[in-house]
């Protein structure tokens, strides 16, 4: 009995030592990111967001390379982590939004100019566009049936939270580029077949999708911050602040849900009437 207790103590102390070493390594890693901090203030943050969001796409489509989405993700992470480490929540959300907005402008512009050529750079984009235009013209899409999309939204919420913890934002942001590019490619194509470009752009990029983007920016920031706090064993912010972020995140989640549920038919109607007939 005594031997068993002693073995248990040894295993526990080894485990504590391992996690302490892991925390020291994590602190080392995050301390090295301070070289990026200069680029996270004022106009430099905007410029960084533009470069991160646009440059890989522009360069890769010229050179014929794919995977610009992963490159943009990897480039944005160090700056995002710096903002998380400094607990600069608003700047963090602004930075993420700016990266995706700049990226979206470039992606829609390039798609509108040459949809055929750009299809190769947006995986799944062509099928997505076909499904969207069919829904706009016929109103038929089984995926838009609430009993199909509602469970998916909840699974996505769990998935994004989980991958924020296990990849510190890498997979959620990559998924973000992938999903927003489906939208960007579809809107780029929609502009070509629509009368009023402003209507196609603002209504085509559904408001509920924008709400989802804000929701996940908040949740990824919060979950990454919480994970870094646990990994490094250094407090980044108060529990009250974390709770508030979840409330905001879930508020935008509900807005996504509600707007999609109540305004989907109106959106389809506007987009349909705006098509060239």
């Amino acid at each position, binding site marked *: 009995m005594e031997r068993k207790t002693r073995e248990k103590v040894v295993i526990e102390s080894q485990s504590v030592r391992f996690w302490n070493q892991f925390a020291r390594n994590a602190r080392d890693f995050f301390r090295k990111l301070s070289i990026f901090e200069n680029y996270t203030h004022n106009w430099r943050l905007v410029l960084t967001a533009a470069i991160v969001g646009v440059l890989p796409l522009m360069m890769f489509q010229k050179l014929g390379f794919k995977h610009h989405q992963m490159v943009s993700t990897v480039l944005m992470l160090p700056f995002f982590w710096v903002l998380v480490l400094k607990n600069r929540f608003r700047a963090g959300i602004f930075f993420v939004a700016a990266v995706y907005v700049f990226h979206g402008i470039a992606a829609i512009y390039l798609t509108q100019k040459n949809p055929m050529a750009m299809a190769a750079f947006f995986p799944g984009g062509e099928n997505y566009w076909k*499904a969207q235009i069919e829904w706009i013209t016929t109103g038929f*899409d089984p995926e838009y049936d609430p009993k199909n999309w509602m469970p998916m939204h909840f699974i*996505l919420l769990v998935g994004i939270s989980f991958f924020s913890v296990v990849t510190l934002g890498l*997979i959620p942001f990559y998924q973000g580029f992938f*999903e927003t590019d489906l939208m960007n490619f579809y809107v780029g194509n929609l502009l070509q077949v629509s009368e009023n470009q402003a209507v196609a752009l603002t209504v085509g990029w559904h408001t509920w999708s924008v709400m989802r983007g804000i929701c996940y920016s908040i949740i990824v920031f919060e979950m990454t911050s919480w994970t870094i706090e646990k990994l490094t*064993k250094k407090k980044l912010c108060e529990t009250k602040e974390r709770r508030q972020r979840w409330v905001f995140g879930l508020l935008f989640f509900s807005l996504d849900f509600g707007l999609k549920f109540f305004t989907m038919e109106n959106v389809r109607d506007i987009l349909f009437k705006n098509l060239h007939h």
Partner: protein
Amino acid sequence: MRNDNEEGGGGNGWLWFILIYVVGGGILYMTTGILLLPIPRK
């Protein structure tokens, strides 16, 4: 002996930290990503 309040681990530990994290996360994504990250119609 080091204690938990020390600042960093020194050496290349930081590299191992990020490698473990990225590789581990990548494996989880390949195995469970398809279940946990559905793509709802925008």
